[in-house]
């Protein structure tokens, strides 16, 4: 009788736990399978998968859509990456806004909105932050995903004790083996993230990409915030772009890619291809360690009293100086990325006339005036051949 009582108790506890597992698991399942709509602009040419350039990621969660906009007019070519680190969502939003509004008059543009797709399928462990944020558009609200920094352990696991970067053999932190921005140039028979890096490199090499732009966001306590990081060959154009932006629009620093820091795109992509490699950072308070409650509002406004205190103590590197009255709103960060990219394109076209590109897409002033949601198209009213899910 007593045994039966114990058994019933255990079954009840197990049932409760399974219900909890279902509730938690359902949320994890939803974010893993969430799809973002994208209504491509009239300049759209075709959409293909990155695995077209390397079979080694075919059928994996690392394979990601690439959107091509080809003017048909000979000129330069650009590969534009958002979502290398999906917990920096202004990069993906900038890519979506570009993909939905771009006009290409000369040259061609390849856009990858979610470069590390696997990392987009989860949140950061232990950080308890929201999985989504909501943008107000002209046609209603749009749910946007916030991902993680590194590829999902469901797709690449276990991590080694020490990650030995290929081919430099430099020792890096173990979790960086799942970090797309530590695995360049990659290899076709390596870890999933190395294979992803390799596929991106193959796209660059096979398509003779002239300009590679990798968008990122940084915490305000990170010295490289509000900065271009330029490979040796792209340093001139980035310096000019930095000066022009700082004089005319917003402060933008420029740094040379360190030669001893391996695996990063601004170093390896430039070293292992002929492209002009550029990485860009905007200020994202959401990922600062000293920020208070990590909420959707913080993601959208960037207003945080702890960061204000840090700013007053001179601990932040963001330019202009952080001010809680303004914060670091989403439209500001997206606008920075769009204008920073445009400025680099302009200077590349100036320095290398044979690589000239003539493009139009919303810029910093447009974003600051109308907000980010204004530039997203309504998927319900889109032509079927222009609507995709990413």
């Amino acid at each position, binding site marked *: 009788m007593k045994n039966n009582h114990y058994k019933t108790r255990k079954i009840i506890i197990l049932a409760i736990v399974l219900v909890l*597992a279902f509730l938690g698991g359902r949320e994890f399942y939803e974010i893993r399978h969430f799809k973002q709509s994208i209504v491509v602009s009239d300049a759209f040419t075709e959409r293909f998968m990155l695995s077209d350039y390397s079979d080694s990621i075919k059928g994996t969660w690392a394979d990601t859509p690439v959107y091509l906009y080809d003017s048909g007019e000979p000129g330069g070519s650009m590969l534009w990456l958002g979502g290398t680190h999906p917990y920096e969502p202004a990069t993906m939003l900038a890519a979506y806004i570009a993909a939905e509004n771009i006009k290409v008059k000369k040259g061609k543009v390849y856009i990858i909105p979610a470069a590390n797709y696997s990392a987009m399928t989860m949140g950061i462990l232990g950080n308890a932050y929201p999985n989504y944020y909501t943008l107000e558009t002209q046609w209603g609200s749009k749910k946007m995903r916030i991902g993680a920094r590194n590829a999902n352990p469901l797709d690449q696991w276990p991590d080694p004790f020490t990650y030995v970067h290929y081919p430099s053999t430099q020792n890096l932190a173990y979790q960086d083996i799942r970090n797309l921005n530590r695995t360049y140039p990659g290899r076709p028979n390596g*870890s999933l993230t190395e294979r992803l890096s390799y596929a991106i490199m193959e796209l660059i090499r096979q398509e003779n990409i002239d300009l590679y732009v990798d968008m990122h966001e940084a915490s305000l306590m990170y010295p490289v915030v509000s900065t271009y990081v330029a490979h040796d060959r792209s340093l001139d154009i980035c310096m000019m772009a930095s000066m022009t932006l700082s004089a005319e629009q917003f402060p933008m620093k420029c740094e040379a890619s360190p030669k001893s820091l391996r695996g990063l795109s601004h170093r390896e992509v430039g070293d292992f291809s002929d492209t002009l490699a550029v990485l860009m950072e905007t200020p994202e308070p959401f990922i600062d360690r000293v920020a208070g409650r990590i909420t959707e509002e913080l993601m959208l406004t960037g207003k945080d009293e702890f960061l204000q205190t840090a700013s007053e103590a001179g601990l932040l590197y963001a330019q202009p100086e952080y001010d809680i009255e303004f914060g670091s709103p989403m439209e500001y960060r997206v606008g920075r990325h769009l204008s920073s990219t445009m400025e680099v394109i302009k200077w590349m076209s100036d320095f290398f006339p044979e690589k000239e590109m003539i493009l139009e897409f919303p810029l910093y002033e447009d974003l600051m005036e109308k907000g980010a949601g204004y530039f997203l198209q309504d998927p319900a009213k889109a032509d079927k051949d222009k609507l995709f899910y990413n």
Partner: protein
Amino acid sequence: MLFLTELIHQIYFILAAIFAILLLRGLFKRGTRKTFIYDIVYAYSIIPFLLRALHIK
């Protein structure tokens, strides 16, 4: 190398499933720590292994 990497990756899922089964067994058939609290601990500890084995988390 690709094959080995994939094999190790899959072994981890299998291990997760084995641990989930061991914990389930421990919940119902254990010789020590028989109190209510330990029932909860054993049952609750199954969740991460179960979700991993099901490729959910």
